């Protein structure tokens, strides 16, 4: 099997940018000197206001955009001369709007399109297609027209259609926009499963609740510059900076900060964390109170 479970943290650097600058035509630069490394097996959230350069940066990772200055390295190799179609073997990119890629008469055909473009043998194409449909729970829709499915399913088809190419690195541009709670978390669970299998995942999103809950690493862009890039918990410590960048912190994080003076853990990211911390606090108080009497 191509995707044997691997330890999700490795020391291999899979993506690196060195002083990356980019401008659309004669416009002012959209990216200003970005240098970063992403380790193989990481799960990174990429956040920032619209126009901060998230998508522009991500499109450099699979060669859709080429730096006006600086370098992009994939597993240590400069990707300058490698065509997008070839890079697609390694870097999968799921666009924001599923309707911008769905064109086939059946879901199965749609998902087989990528592997087929890679020039794989038909048996392998079929195998990958079936497996991708299984992973995203689409098997029952295999013979449906994907364009006619509901929005949540179309979204899953668009992700499965990129996943079926088995890229080591998977980039998703706001995959949960317009999805309800259930679809969002279902999708995030499936991405987490891929992460556990060893895939590197880069998630562009505005939803800081998802970052807090799912992505161990977080990258913040502002006006084309890398503002913060660290473990998610450390990034959340800079809450004033994040708010300045118009990033909305989850209620739990705000609440943890407000309650910190009375002893709740300041860096709680999720509801269970805050709940535990608060419960501990109450329990301790009860012990002291009981001891006092």
């Amino acid at each position, binding site marked *: 099997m191509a995707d044997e479970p691997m330890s999700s943290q490795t020391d291999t650097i899979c993506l690196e940018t060195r002083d990356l600058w980019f401008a659309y*035509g004669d416009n002012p630069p959209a990216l200003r000197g970005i240098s970063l490394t992403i380790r193989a097996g990481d799960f990174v959230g990429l956040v920032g206001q619209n126009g901060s350069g998230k998508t522009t940066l991500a499109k450099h990772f699979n060669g*859709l955009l080429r730096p006006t200055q600086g370098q992009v390295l994939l597993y240590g190799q400069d990707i300058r001369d490698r065509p997008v*179609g070839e890079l697609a073997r390694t870097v*999968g990119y799921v*666009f924001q709007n599923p309707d911008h890629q769905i*064109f086939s008469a059946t879901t199965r055909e749609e998902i087989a399109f990528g592997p087929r*473009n*890679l020039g794989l043998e038909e048996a392998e194409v079929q195998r990958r297609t079936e497996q991708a449909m299984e992973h995203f729970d689409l098997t029952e829709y295999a013979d449906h027209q994907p364009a006619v499915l509901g929005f949540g399913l179309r979204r899953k088809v668009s992700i499965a259609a990129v996943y079926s190419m088995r890229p080591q690195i998977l980039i998703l541009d706001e995959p949960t926009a317009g999805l309800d709670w259930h679809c969002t978390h279902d999708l995030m669970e499936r991405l987490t499963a891929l992460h556990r299998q060893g895939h590197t995942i880069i998630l562009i999103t505005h939803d800081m609740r998802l970052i807090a809950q799912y992505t161990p690493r977080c990258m913040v862009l502002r006006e084309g510059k890398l503002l913060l890039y660290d473990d998610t918990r450390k990034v959340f410590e800079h809450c004033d900076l994040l708010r300045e960048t118009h990033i909305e912190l989850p209620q739990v994080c705000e609440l943890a900060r407000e309650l910190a003076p009375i002893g709740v853990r300041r860096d709680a990211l999720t509801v269970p964390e805050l709940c535990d911390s608060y419960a501990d606090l109450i329990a301790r108080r009860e012990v002291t109170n009981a001891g006092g009497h």
Partner: protein
Amino acid sequence: MQVGIDLFVLRKSWLHEIDPRVKLFFVAVSIIILLVFKNIFFMLTALVLLHLLHWSAKIPRDRILFVWKTLMPVAILICVLWVVFYPAGDPLIQIWMVKITLVSLAQGAVLGLRIMTMAFVVFAWLYSTDQPSIVRSLVKLKMPFEWGLILALALRYIPTFQGMYAVISEAQQARALNISEGKGFGRVRTLMPIFVAMVISALRASDQLARALEARAFGAHGVERTYLRDISFRPLDWVFTFAIFATALLLLYLNFRYGFGRQPISLF
């Protein structure tokens, strides 16, 4: 990234100020005149006057060069074709089978330049008139409002779909579609996954657009539509209309009665 498809150049000039219907009238009349007159001196004069017109309307130089660059190859082609295929009169030079004569050279130049002058006439109108005014003027000239709306909506959505094409093309490339492969039929066949996704997305947009139009009370029965921005004829517009009309009549009269401008080189 959206590339504007609007040719309009926002400036303050007399040409921008006049009623678009006058400009439309000018375009129609000019094209007739340019098709009737076949004299090189007349054509060159027209070309100079049209450049003065663009200059006085403060149209930037690159917009004028754009027209030259695009049409120059066609103009030269036409000129060469006439010289090669329709020799008349005494040859100036003869290179192998090809006789180059003064008359055919002038004739070729006239027809080549006509492509340019006609373009400058059309662009004088389009560069100085914004899209809503064009649509409004057509509706005022008794085109049904619905057709004006169709035109306006189409112009509005061209940049949107252009952007959509770019995004879809990227999305399919990210699925290892190699779009720089093949020529002719092969290339179009390769682009099909982009075309299909784009057409479906565009058709979805048409459904939503229809809903948006209805939600704004479009098609209200028994109501006469009003207009916030209207165009109206001012006295100066009447002067221009009359001037265009009179000049055209005079030129056509001279042409029909005295043969003015009918010959490639001699004026009468």
